[in-house]
């Protein structure tokens, strides 16, 4: 029996709306629950005190600092190398087998589970280079982890710059370097920074890879070689070991707020970019 098109249209519409509203509900359920439980925990001493008693008491200052340090190390390395690689691929190589191989590798490596990056970081940075569990090992591991993403998004942004910009720059007597710096880079910068912000988000949210390479020390990190824990790792340990649910909720709420801010900044950048190109 054929269903009347009008009826099937109605059914489909209802199902699709239901799916969409369901997803929104789940998302808000997660976020609101965490914020509801966590926000009351966040106060000045929570943000500025070091965890005491394995994290049962005190704040999460050292985990906040740890997150910032590890993420900074990762960015300082991944950003120049990632952007440089992207420019090399987009501006100095021709479409061909080599570029295809590099792009395939970058794409595949972007999909490799973070735990595998953690394995690599542990055996290479922690053990082989003898950096121990440290800010540096964690940052280096995260740098390698976000490198494929930075390369890919930057290369896409660079290749989205119209060829006519390059032609104009060359026709006005620009050298290749001048053309890249003065015509291509400013036009690609928003796309590139969007990729970097995605990378920051991944660094902040990452748990598995950092736990294996930066360790889980509760102390405030005093140098690049000190072990540390990040907020995500701190949350995981608190929640899994059942040390302090309240502090776990507080940490999670702070993480969600941080991710939210990172997303807002990224969207503002994209919007500015699209508005400018209209």
């Amino acid at each position, binding site marked *: 029996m054929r269903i009347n098109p009008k009826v099937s249209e109605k059914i489909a519409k209802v199902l699709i709306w239901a799916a*969409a509203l369901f997803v929104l509900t789940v998302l808000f359920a997660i976020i609101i629950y965490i914020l509801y439980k966590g926000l009351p925990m966040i106060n000045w001493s929570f943000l500025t005190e070091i965890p005491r008693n394995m994290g049962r008491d005190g704040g999460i200052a050292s985990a906040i600092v740890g997150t910032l340090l590890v993420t900074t190390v990762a960015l300082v390395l991944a950003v120049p190398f990632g952007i440089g690689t992207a420019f090399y691929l987009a501006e100095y190589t021709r479409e061909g087998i080599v570029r295809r191989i590099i792009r395939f590798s970058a794409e595949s490596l972007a999909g490799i589970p973070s735990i595998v990056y953690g394995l690599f970081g542990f055996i290479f940075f922690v053990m082989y280079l003898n950096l121990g569990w440290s800010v540096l090992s964690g940052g280096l591991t995260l740098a390698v982890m976000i490198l494929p993403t930075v390369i890919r998004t930057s290369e896409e942004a660079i290749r989205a710059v119209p060829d006519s910009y390059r032609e104009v720059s060359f026709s006005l007597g620009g050298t290749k370097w001048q053309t890249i710096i003065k015509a291509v880079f400013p036009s690609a910068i928003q796309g590139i920074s969007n990729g970097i912000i995605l990378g920051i988000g991944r660094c902040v949210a990452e748990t598995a890879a950092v736990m294996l390479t930066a360790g889980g020390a509760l102390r405030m990190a005093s140098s690049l070689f000190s072990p540390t824990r990040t907020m995500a790792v701190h*949350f995981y340990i608190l929640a899994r070991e059942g040390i302090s649910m309240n502090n776990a909720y507080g940490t999670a709420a702070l993480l969600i707020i941080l991710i939210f801010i990172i997303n807002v900044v990224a969207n503002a950048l994209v919007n500015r970019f699209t508005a400018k190109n209209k």
Partner: protein
Amino acid sequence: MKLKENISKYIFLTLAFSSISALALITVFIIINGVPIIAEVGIINFIFGMSWAPSHGEYGIFPMIIGSVTVTLGAAVLGVPIGVCCAIFLTEFAPPTLSKLFRPAIQLLAGIPSVVYGFWGLLFIVPFIRNFFGGPGLSILAGSVILAIMVLPTVISITEVSILALPKQYREGALALGMTHWQTIRSVILPSAKSGIVAAVILGIGRAIGETMAVIMVLGNAVAVPESILDPVRTLTTNIGIEMGYASGTHRQALFATGIVLFIIIMVLNATAQYITRKKK
């Protein structure tokens, strides 16, 4: 001038070369550290071995492979239809105000640390399953539900892009033939966007198979071949996550070997997704 040009070119070349070597290094290191144990145990015994007992030198990862596959399949079964529906909703039905809310929400969903999902699952999904379906609650089903939510952003955004990429004429042509909106979607839009949707599903599966921290909290992590979706399992990733902290010697090598298996799975999935999207162009 010429000199400056050459210098800048070599700087770019050096940066590119270092990045690519770093990425190659990962592959090489994982392989070097994992291959010896596979050679020792034998590839068949390693992959199809039913017993994982590092203290007795037994390294068979078949239960973990079953764990990864079942949890991921469950996530795909639950997540893909919802994700595709959301993408259709966004491109075809959503009022502008709602889609303005929806897109950032999906982004946020993608950015939330996986441990937070795991924790939420532990608090709500696991007790729910225990009370309504029985069993320990820590189970394949719990992992699948959490992963289904986590793959939504991947499935939704890639599907949405492939629907939006369709020429406007497809839609207009179908509507001009007197098709209803839903008929247009079902018989014109979805078939034309098929390769993009398949790629979205594959990449979503890749994300699910690679996830560690979320599932570590809800799967129960028992090394055994499950009999139902209410049984606890351990996946390839959680196996590494749980044991890496204290493993040494051949045990550690066996974890690297598990990493190789994951690596190969992701490579194959990625190559398939790329092949499908390229074929379309």
